[in-house]
Structures are given as C-alpha cells and as structure tokens.
C-alpha cells in the first residue's frame, strides 16, 4: 500500500513540475536520460555515449532514481510516463519496452532506422523488442548472452581439465575439481541466477530447437516432455557441485570465488567479464570463457536498449541525436569494449575486443544466420515478466528442495505458466 502511494505521489509531483516546461520555444539541447548504469565499469561505458553527444553540443542529464537498480528505475519510469512527463529516453529491458510501445507511449524513429539500415545490421530476433508493427521505438546498445561458463585458468591447469564439450564432460570436469578439493561450481542461490543457469541446461539437454519450442513458443507438450524432466534432473546433478553456503549469494560474489581460485567455474552471462576486468584479469591468460557445453553455436541473448518516448517538439532533436549516436559503429565498439558485451550491430570490427568478445561477436553472426539466436527465458527476453517469474519460481523451488521431483517440477512449470498467461 505504502509503495503504491509513493508511486502515485511521485507521479503527481512529476506532473506538476512537468507542465510548465512544455511551452519553451527553442530546441532543447538537454537529454534527460533514465538509467541505472552507475557502477564503475558501467558508468565508464556510458560516458563514451555522453562524450560523443557532448561533441555535438548536447548536454546530458541523469534522471535520479531513488534506491537505484533496475526495479526502482522501472517504477520511476512508470510514474513519469503516467504523469505525461517522460524522459528523452530510458534504459529498458525486454518486454518492458513492448509494454510502452503497446500503450502508444514510444516515439516513432523509423525514419532514422531506414536511413541507418538498422533492420539489416541488428539481429533479426532482437528487433522484436525494438519495433512494434514495423515502427521503431527503441535501439539496442549491446548484446549479452547467458550460455557461458567462466573458468579460472590456474585451477583448470592444476586439475588437468580440458574444455568440456558435452554435459557429461562438464560433470566429469566438476568431479575432478571436487576431488582436488576446490569448490567445483560457484553459484549464487538467487532465483534469477539459478534460472539463468537453467536456460543453458535446457539448451544443452534438449538442443536449441527444444529450447525454442518450450520457451519461445511455450509449446505445452515440450514443457511437460521427458526432455524437460531430464533437464531438471541435470540441474539436480549440478546442485551436487555447489558449496553449502550458496543460498542468497550475489552473482558478483560467486564470480569473485572463481577469480580468487576458490571455485573452478561459474555459469553466468557475459556481464561477469566486467568483474574479471575490475580484478585486472585477462581473458585467455587468467580465465577462460567457453559456451555452456552442448550449446555452442546458439546464443541465448539479452540486451540493454534505449527506449525513446513521445516528447515535445523542442526535445525531438536531442532524441534523434541520442538514437543516432547510440547506433554509431564507433560508439558501439567503444561502449561495448568497456562494458564487456558484444555490439548490437553485426557489421562492426571485432579488432578491439578480447578473446571472449571476439567469440561472442562471431557467435551472434552465425546464430543469427542459423536462427539459433534466441531470447533468454531467465533474462525476460523469451517471455513477458509474468511468465518468466513463474519459471523462476519453479527452478528455485526445485533447486532448494521445495519441489522434490522433476515430474512435479514439470507439472508446476506448466501450471505456473498457464496461470501467468
């Protein structure tokens, strides 16, 4: 109740402040930007876009978000848009962009898209989130993917491991680590992290076609198939390799276990690379990045986007500048080299990227051509939040023993998804 009140009060206040400003005549050179990239690496990456805009004479103004984090930012955005005073643009994830597009709150930047030939250079599956009925309302800044494993190279050499190519080879490798007295799998026991790992497990167990049928098409027969049960069984196998204190651990703490050599590997999206970078570790030398065994060739992606809102005429020029700058190939390279993600354009050079970045860029191109570039269920790019969170519920309850068998897990998954539809 109280939260609702704060939200509404915020909306009212924003409306009162917002109304008088609509009348100013000359072009407004200020870009109001809502985002939650505040940590060191993220802020540094964002400043590449800020600097490029400053050169064109645009000033940048962060919209403050009380509390920080994506959840709070989305609440702020909702209040601002509801009050008719949207920011120039906002960082946005997956289906949230479509919510605003469906509500008719996004600007139409299709002309820019046509000029820049964006439809060709951005992976096709991703355009689902940037366009609605053929109209562009958002641009992707980067592409992350979740089907990676991150390995401490020193530990790997100590136990004499090699790159695992299948799920069985993965468990064999984890066994080796266990015998050597290292924590085999660094896992943060929070629902979204567990679900992120399960995305890869499902793809590895059933193949990418199965993943597509189950999670993108929500085919009920696939969801309750034996393959899905086997995926849960495989997840249960991985549970044998985590340390007993994993429940509730933050993802970056799990990554630091790998960095320090306390643990052999972590299954995590490639934002984990940022942590390695902060610790001055180098890809290929200190740590290794492989696709999750059995998922090579597919990319389970998520992406950060900038959504553009319908703003008054005097703020349009700044909006256009932001969209064009974000999609500029050089900016895409500069931004993503720092952020650790892959560029959202497939036509940029991979020269400046490290080993893992180069692989990510090549994989995205190949997967887009093969149709194996698919949205991550755990990161809200396969299904809307209501369904994705139903998925979290089942995965985390299964992993922590509230759901005891894979039969029951599959039943709960179908029931949860149906009730959330």
């Amino acid at each position, binding site marked *: 109740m109280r939260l609702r009140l704060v939200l509404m009060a915020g909306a009212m206040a924003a409306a009162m402040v917002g109304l008088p400003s609509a009348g100013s005549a000359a072009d407004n050179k200020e870009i109001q930007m809502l985002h939650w990239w505040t940590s060191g690496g993220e802020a540094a990456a964002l400043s590449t876009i800020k600097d490029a805009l400053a050169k064109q004479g645009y000033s940048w103004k962060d919209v403050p978000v009380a509390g920080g984090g994506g959840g709070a930012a989305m609440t702020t955005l909702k209040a601002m848009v509801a009050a008719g005073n949207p920011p120039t643009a906002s960082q946005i994830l997956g289906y949230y962009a479509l919510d605003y597009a469906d509500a008719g709150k996004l600007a139409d930047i299709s002309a820019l898209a046509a000029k820049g030939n964006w439809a060709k250079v951005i992976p096709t599956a991703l355009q689902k989130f940037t366009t609605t009925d053929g109209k562009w309302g958002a641009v992707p800044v980067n592409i992350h993917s979740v089907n990676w494993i991150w390995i401490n190279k020193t530990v790997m050499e100590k136990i004499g491991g090699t790159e695992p190519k299948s799920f069985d080879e993965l468990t064999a490798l984890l066994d080796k680590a266990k015998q050597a007295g290292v924590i085999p799998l660094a896992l943060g026991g929070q629902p979204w992290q567990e679900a992120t790992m399960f995305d890869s497990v499902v793809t590895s167990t059933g193949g990418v076609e199965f993943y597509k049928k189950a999670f993108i098409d929500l085919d009920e027969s696939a969801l309750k198939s034996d393959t899905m049960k086997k995926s849960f069984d495989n997840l249960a196998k991985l549970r044998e390799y985590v340390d007993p204190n994993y*429940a*509730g651990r933050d993802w970056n703490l799990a990554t630091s276990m790998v960095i320090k050599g306390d643990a052999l590997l972590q299954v995590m999206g490639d934002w984990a690379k940022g942590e390695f970078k902060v610790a001055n570790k180098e890809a290929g030398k200190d740590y290794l990045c492989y696709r999750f065994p059995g998922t090579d060739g597919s990319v389970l992606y998520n992406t950060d986007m900038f959504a553009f809102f319908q703003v008054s005429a005097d703020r349009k020029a700044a909006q256009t500048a932001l969209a064009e700058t974000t999609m500029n190939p050089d900016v895409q390279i500069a931004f993503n080299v720092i952020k650790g993600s892959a560029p959202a354009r497939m036509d940029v050079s991979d020269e400046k990227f490290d080993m893992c970045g180069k692989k990510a860029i090549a994989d995205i191109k190949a997967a887009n051509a093969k149709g194996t570039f698919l949205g991550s269920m755990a990161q809200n790019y396969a299904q809307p*939040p209501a369904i994705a969170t139903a998925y979290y519920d089942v995965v985390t309850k299964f992993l922590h023993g509230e759901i005891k068998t894979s039969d029951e897990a599959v039943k709960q998954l179908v029931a949860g998804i149906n009730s959330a539809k």
Partner: protein
Amino acid sequence: MTNTSQAVTAPIVRSARGRVRDQMQDLLPRLVLAPSFLLILVFVYGFNLWTLLLSFTNSRAFPTFNFIGWANYAKLWNWTFERDPPSNWYTAIVNMGLFGSLYVIFCLALGLLLAIFLDQKIRGEGFLRPLYLYPLALSFIVTGTAWKLFLDPRIGLEKAMHDLGWTSFHFDWVVDPRMMIYCVAIAGIWQTSGFVMAMFLAALRGIDSEILKAAQIDGASTFATYRRIIIPLIRPAFMSALIILTHMAIKSYDLVLSVTGKNPGGAAELPSTFMYSYTFTRNQMGVGSASAVIMLATIAAIMVPYLYSELKEKR
C-alpha cells in the same frame, strides 16, 4: 465550547467584534487541519479505494479497467491451500504467522524483561537506556545487511567460533531457505525490543508507589508483586506495544529482502514482498492489488476492535 454553556456563563450581550473572534477561534482548528485532512483523504483513503478498484480488474503492467469480478481473490484463495509444493502465497502466509508471532512475542518478552531490570534503580541507567534504544535509529536495510553478514557461516559467527577453536559449532540458518525466516525474526527482534522496553519503562515509572508499598507491607514477594500488581497495571502499554509490533510485522519488507538475499527457493516470501513483486515486477497488478487489500483487511481486523474499545472507554 457550546453556545448554551456560553449563554449561561456569559449572559451579557457580546460585541460584534467578539463574535467574529469567536467564530474565527471555532474555525481556526479546522483551517489548520484542513490541508493534512485533505492530503490524507486523497493519498491514504483515496488510494485505498483505487487499490480496491484495481483488485477487481485484470491490470497487468499498467492499470486497466477490464473488470473480472472476484477472479484475483479466487486465485489467492486457491493458492492459500497449495502446500506441496508451496505456492508463493501459501509460503507468504505461513511465514507471516511464524515471523509475526515470534517477532511480537519475543519483542514483548524481552522488552518487558529489560524494562523491569532497568527499573531496579540501577546505576548507569542513563547510559544503558539509549544503548538498548539505539538499534531503532537504524534503517531496516542496515540491520538486515549487518545480520546477514554476521550470520553468514563463511565470514560471520560460525567462522569466528571455528577460529576460536570451537570447530563443531554449526549455525547456517541464513543460507538455509527453510530457516531464513527465523533469521529475519532475530534481526527484527534485535532492532525493536529496545523500543518496546522504552514503552514499558515509561509505564512502570507511572505506577503509584503507594500501591507498591502497600503490597510490600502485605508481605508480597517481588515476583508476586510483578505478576499480580505491576504487570496488570501496565496493561494499556501492552496493548499499545502489541498494536505497534503487529503492524510493523505485517509491513516488514526491506528487512526480509536484505537478510535473505532476494528470496532463494521462494522460501522467504511475506505478504509484503508478494504484493510488491506481483504488482511491480511480475506485471500482475490485479493479483498484487488483491493481496494488498487482504493485508489491509487483516490489519483492519486487528485495529478496528482495538480503536473501538479505546474510544468506548473514553466516552
């Protein structure tokens, strides 16, 4: 204040100026209270009604007005009985019961005990009293994070005990989804029992010393004095503490999230976290609103009888 009493006490005809001043004096309290009354009317009761309205719609990310009757409540009602595997709502209710009763009972017991000890005319009371009261000055987020770190077996209590040589010591509740809710209760009790103590202490100081002397003369033991005389006398303080603790327990949100770390296994759900996640992150605003209405109704079920009895006594 009424006109009749004025007529009796002041039979002289009042001047016109005096009458205006009287009217102003009558009006002033209303004028001063009007803004806050209006704000409360809109932002508390207005939005209560708004939430009630939304709970009958199928609102998802944004409020919509497709009315679907009692469907959201039916959903919650069905979830109330899904025990194996537990639905989020079932877990929330069970945890509410566990957390709420532990929190209230231990806070009352500890608060009373501390207050009685401090009331023994001991030296250094002025130093000890704020010491117990200070935790309340912290925000729940800070308390929660501190307790999470303190109880974390890898870095906190368990490790400290092992370092001291007690290697068989084992305490991992904070990373065991089934025991997490008890850790939330521990943190909550630590924070609030000092406040309850202050309330009881004030009540103890208000007791007439004549009564205690009479009891002493009658030869009552200290224990009997407390049990038969003092505690019954401070019953109103119990009532106030109970009300405050109950609503704090139902409202807890930040404490739960910071102690449990994003709710692993869905085992640390409480009605408040349930309401927030369904309304704002799961895009099921209708269900979220229905759960908020149920929470409000629960609090009302506790508060209304209390307010009623309080107001009746005064009349």
